[in-house]
């Protein structure tokens, strides 16, 4: 049964991430990478709902920002902060934002909840700050078109990010493979190094995943700047980052908790538990690699 569960899980995951593709800005980019796939049976009303909510919040934020500017009262501002947070939560709940990579990365190594939160928070931070920096540089230094710059910078950072994700996956695979062959419990526990080193690695992983500028943050900044409210834009961008951090962390925690629960159902230190854990680690490392490679292939 254990093996069966693991096999099912692995197959499902590999199958799920086999269908990666990329879509860039159709208003500016020439590439046409996707076509409509007819007669597909799946339906995810979840995504449609997220889009509707996002659209409403987006409109609400625009109205409130204008109100805040005209009335100068704190009430619309307070509402704006709350909505920006929710917008961040929803924005990260949609496709992308490195959730799958982050989750697989954490599942592939022995990680605790603190590290999950750290990874989620830093991915959101890097993702958002990258967007902020892009807007500021393009607007104040180059004074060129944001849409074009966003397009080219996104592409460059995507190539770097996905390449490094693939590399990270390969390293994880190699490490897991190595420890599997060594077969000593102590080795398995220690092969990812001490706490400080783990922390550094988590940060590096967050940087790799989060370096791509967040278009949501870019748009919030641009909108605020169009009303000559740069500081409010910056502030709301950070509120939104907090929202995104909550979602990404939650997903990573869910993944690691799922893994721990699965292992918890097995007898501690039984042979089966060790096999399942190692298989899960290997599968997750394999998925990081596949995600990196497929995303890279779709971008280049």
């Amino acid at each position, binding site marked *: 049964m254990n093996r069966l569960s693991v096999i099912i899980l692995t197959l499902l995951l590999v199958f799920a991430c086999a269908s990666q593709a990329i*879509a860039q800005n159709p208003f500016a980019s020439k590439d046409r990478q996707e076509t409509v796939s007819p007669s597909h049976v799946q339906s995810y009303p979840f995504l449609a709902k997220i889009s509707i909510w996002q659209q409403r919040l987006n409109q609400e934020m625009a109205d409130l920002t204008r109100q805040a500017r005209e009335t100068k009262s704190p009430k619309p501002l307070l509402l704006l902060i709350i909505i920006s947070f929710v917008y961040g939560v929803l924005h990260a709940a949609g496709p992308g934002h490195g959730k799958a990579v982050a989750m697989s990365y954490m599942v592939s190594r022995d990680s605790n909840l603190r590290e999950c939160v750290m990874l989620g928070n830093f991915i959101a931070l890097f993702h958002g700050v990258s967007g902020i920096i892009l807007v500021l540089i393009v607007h104040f230094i180059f004074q060129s078109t944001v849409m074009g710059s966003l397009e080219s910078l996104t592409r460059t950072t995507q190539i770097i990010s996905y390449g490094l994700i693939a590399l990270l996956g390969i390293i994880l695979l190699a490490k897991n493979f190595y420890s599997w062959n060594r077969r000593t419990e102590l080795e398995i526990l220690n092969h990812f190094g001490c706490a400080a080193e783990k922390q550094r690695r988590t940060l590096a992983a967050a940087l790799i995943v989060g370096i791509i500028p967040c278009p949501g943050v870019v748009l919030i900044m641009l909108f605020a700047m169009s009303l000559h409210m740069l500081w409010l834009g910056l502030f709301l961008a950070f509120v939104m980052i907090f929202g995104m951090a909550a979602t990404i962390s939650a997903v990573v925690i869910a993944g690691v908790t799922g893994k721990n629960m699965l292992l918890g159902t097995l007898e501690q230190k039984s042979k089966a538990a060790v096999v399942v854990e190692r298989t899960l680690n290997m599968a997750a490392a394999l998925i990081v690699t596949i995600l990196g490679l497929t995303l890279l292939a779709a971008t280049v």
Partner: protein
Amino acid sequence: MKYRLSVSLIFATLLLLVFSQTSFSHPHAFIDNKLTMIFDNEGFAGIRAEWVFDEFFSSMIVGDYDRNQNNILEDSEITAIKKGAFDNLSNFDHFTVIRIGGKPFKVKYVRDFSVALKEGKLIYVFFIPCHVKAILAFKEIVISQYDPTYYADMSLDESQPIIMEGDSGFETSCIIAENPRISYYFGLVHPIETIVRFRLKDE
């Protein structure tokens, strides 16, 4: 054993949910869409699309192209918008999918493009020629507009999604429905289709 199976199933479902939508953070633009079905003396002439963009995306385009920052789009700025943020959509059939009598009709070109800026929202208006002569038997045209890449989320305007224009000489009907048999963006979204039927009036 049962517990173990259910835990692993829950875990697998969660993973599937996350991974099935693993791609890129979309949508970024929201378009409120109004379609006018235009008839001429002979039958169906084409569709006039009016796209109202959300204020965030609008502010990006306006920031990029309203060079003198007067919040009015002059002719030269409109030409620049057309070149920089519209013409490329021809690679995507202008997000328009049409079937005439069940057969696909490829949108090769559009005309009469104009841009306006109203209350912070950018509005694109353009005409998609698609001539279908009316006869005594009903003819059916199915139109949907969506961005297959889901960069932009398009939804029909709630108050007045479809307008019929110049159809007095014909017997017409118009239905709006989601088509579950077609999906896009990794099978995550279904298009909303407008089904127009028309024929010559018996006289």
